[in-house]
């Protein structure tokens, strides 16, 4: 199984407070914008570039966390895919520090993400975890638990050359998802094995059927680094 992991594009939460007012957000989200910021214009451009580069990969499934920036990034990537799959929202992919928050309300999905089909996260989640991560769960044990729960779910559902995409955030993706895919020990994870994740970076971990876990690359931002006019689809992973 090939697991591609993308961090969301730049969000309003990633820029200086004084610049946020200049970035548009949907009126539906006025009350939620502080907790669940939208992508900035740059963030959307980054996601388009990542989507174009990822168009050379055909995904069998696409998962994202329940946050607006995570869903939006997956939705933009999906626009560039020839094979259309539904985007599956998993509470376990939410960012750390947002426990107790269910994510963008599902009744907004149609208006915010009109171009894609989305399967909202159920409660319990398909991974077996809760539909909303309880606020009391998120100590380091909680992070590890949901990282491992996610990986076990993926391993039950996919194998061989199955190729999937996870759209998540920097802390959870870099400090939990990759270590969980590598099946690192509690001590390994607690001592901070961290993979840096820039906005829309792409990482890929292969889980082989005979038990190997290989980080093929991490924090690849080729799509943001190419000379102007270069076609990123000419740059294989």
């Amino acid at each position, binding site marked *: 199984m090939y697991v591609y992991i993308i961090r969301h594009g730049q969000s309003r939460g990633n820029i200086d407070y004084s610049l946020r007012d200049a970035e548009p957000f949907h009126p539906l989200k006025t009350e939620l914008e502080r907790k669940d910021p939208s992508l900035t214009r740059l963030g959307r451009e980054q996601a388009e570039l990542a989507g174009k580069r990822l168009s050379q990969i055909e995904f069998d499934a696409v998962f994202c966390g329940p946050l607006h920036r995570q869903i939006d990034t997956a939705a933009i990537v999906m626009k560039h895919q020839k094979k259309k799959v539904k985007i599956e929202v998993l509470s376990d992919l939410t960012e750390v520090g947002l426990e107790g928050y269910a994510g963008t309300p599902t009744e907004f999905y149609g208006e915010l993400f009109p171009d894609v089909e989305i399967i909202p996260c159920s409660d319990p989640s398909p991974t077996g975890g809760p539909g909303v991560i309880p606020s009391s769960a998120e100590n380091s044990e909680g992070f590890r638990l949901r990282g491992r729960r996610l990986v076990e779910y993926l391993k039950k559902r996919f194998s061989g050359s199955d190729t999937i995409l996870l759209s998540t955030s920097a802390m959870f993706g870099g400090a939990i998802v990759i270590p969980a895919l590598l099946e690192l020990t509690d001590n390994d994870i607690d001592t901070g*094995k*961290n993979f840096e994740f820039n906005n829309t970076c792409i990482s890929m971990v292969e889980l082989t059927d005979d*038990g*190997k*876990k*290989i980080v093929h*690359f991490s*924090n690849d931002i080729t799509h943001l680094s*190419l000379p102007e006019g270069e076609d990123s689809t000419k740059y*294989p992973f």
Partner: protein
Amino acid sequence: MRLYVITECDDSAADRAGRQMAGVPLDAVIYGDSERGKSTADAVVKYQEKLDTPEMVSELCENKTLTDRERAKAVKEMITERFKGCEKVAAIMPAEFFGNSFGAVIMKMSDEAIDNGAAFGCHEGAISSFAVGTSAEASFVNSTLHLKVSDPEMIKNF
């Protein structure tokens, strides 16, 4: 200290890696006893203003008495001790040694995790970057953009 690992490669790829690293002022470039290690290290030094020559270190040399993992640990210890106080060091090593041993060791993964199959991909001429210190952090792993651009002149520095 930031460690850049560049995997041994042919002359063309080494030149591209050197160009890619030109914007990173390195305090040292180290390599083992292989011809390709030496030529890759030379190509990296060529684009460095502060350095005249790379340095062969015994820990990166073939060693029949140590397993690859033991050798990887010895390399990590040597780098940590010897280059304490340095900001940026590049180590040239064979791709398979990086992928199967050194990558996991520099990320301070336990023997148990490595025994269970944790590893890194290994592409010749790829560049990876790690923070070496109390935490284990990979800034990026197996960056190969410099190997893929059609014209080496298009390579941007890190």
